[in-house]
């Protein structure tokens, strides 16, 4: 874990994934896609049928978020992460399909960690509830699929210095275990 914030850009290469260690603070710049459970369900159904996804997942990062509506003149409303464990059933399939990064909040399950180890992917968290602050780093937002899902539609975002923390890395290091062990008292 380093004190400095690492600057990284999307899409992610294997080298970027390898450079990230649980506990690192990062600023992400580039395109990221949004999806919550409802959108993930549809994406995995497409994968099951062998059909093309609305975006090419190779090297991409998905942010688990359902933003608030944008006020006039703003690209997006408040946009903090949603709880990631709800994506446990879908994330391994997306990682197999080439996804390299996920951003959410809360711990991800062992099935996801296995897929992260096997295919080199990383799980980062944004601060749950810091949605107005996070929204400042989102410069563009465009719905690219599933508009009928409202807040849960898939959006392509362009972010600059999006603040996140590496929570679970591809080696299996886990801040939810490491951090808690450091600070717990009997």
């Amino acid at each position, binding site marked *: 874990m380093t004190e400095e914030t690492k600057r990284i850009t999307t899409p992610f290469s294997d080298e970027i994934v390898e450079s990230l260690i649980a506990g690192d*603070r990062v600023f992400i710049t580039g395109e990221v896609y949004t999806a919550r459970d409802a959108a993930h369900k549809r994406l995995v159904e497409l994968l099951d049928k062998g059909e093309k996804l609305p975006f090419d997942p190779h090297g991409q990062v998905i942010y688990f*978020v359902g933003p*608030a509506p944008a006020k006039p003149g703003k690209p997006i*409303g408040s946009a903090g992460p949603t709880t990631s464990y709800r994506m446990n059933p879908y994330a391994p399939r997306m990682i197999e399909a080439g996804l390299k990064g996920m951003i959410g909040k809360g711990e991800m399950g062992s099935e996801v960690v296995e897929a992260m180890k096997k295919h080199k992917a990383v799980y980062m968290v944004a*601060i749950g*509830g810091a949605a*107005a602050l996070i929204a400042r780093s989102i410069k563009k937002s465009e719905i690219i699929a599933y508009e009928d899902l409202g*807040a849960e539609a898939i959006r392509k975002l362009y972010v600059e210095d999006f603040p996140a923390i590496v929570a679970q890395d591809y080696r299996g290091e886990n801040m939810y275990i490491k*951090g808690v062990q450091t*600070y717990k008292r009997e």
Partner: protein
Amino acid sequence: MRNIEANVISDTVRRLCMEANYHLGDDVLEALNKFEAVEESPLGKNILKQIIQNAEIAHSEEVAMCQDTGFAVAFVELGQEVHITGGGLNDAINDGIHRGYADGYLRKSIVEDPLRRKNTGDNTPGVIHLEMVPGDKIKVIIAPKGGGSENMSEVKMMKPADGVEGLKAFVIDRVRRSGGNPCPPVIVGVGVGGTFEKCAYLAKKALLRRIGSTHPDPFYAEMEKELLVKINNLGIGPQGLGGRTMALAVHIAEHPCHIASFPVAVNLNCHAARHKEAVI
């Protein structure tokens, strides 16, 4: 009898929905600052700083502090000398929620059926808790409740023999199992006694109590203090990534109960602990 127009109630609810989502209570901010000052984890400290900064941005720009602008929970204390004219109370509240969430650029997070899951599109209906009280006024509290922390809540029908130790163990375990999911730091609402549904209601209502206030009964005041220390000793910390700040407060609300029962409910609220009230 005092007449109150339904549309006055509706306008008030509309305003409270927005205010609650934009402006974090000064008690929550004070607690966040207090814990930030002593947080030992550098990462945890940084997270708390960003949470405070977020509340300041939401306040000054009048935008939602969290994108999950919640289930609109309304606590209404209706004076028994009030006569509502020009429409029903429930309709007035839901109309206020509808307009508040639309006009305030707040997210619509309600599905009309838990299994078929079609969004109602306007964040209605709210959950309305009504109490009749003496007097000729109406007090309305709007408490938008996020899903992440609500999902980490639980009711347990314990045995009377489980006693104080059983209660404490259950509360601590519930918090431990929730980890980073409820967006810690959290506020822990505990309902003890009553019936199955009453204790859940008490737990939710306990979240409305001012942070920093002391329980009027020293027995419970002591228990709240002890639970807070033990919960923070879990080391879960801000966002679950390790640290000394898992909870900002523990609030217990108790009620008489049946000789055979010992119901306990834990309702967690995230740091986006939103509630605003008005008296009409």
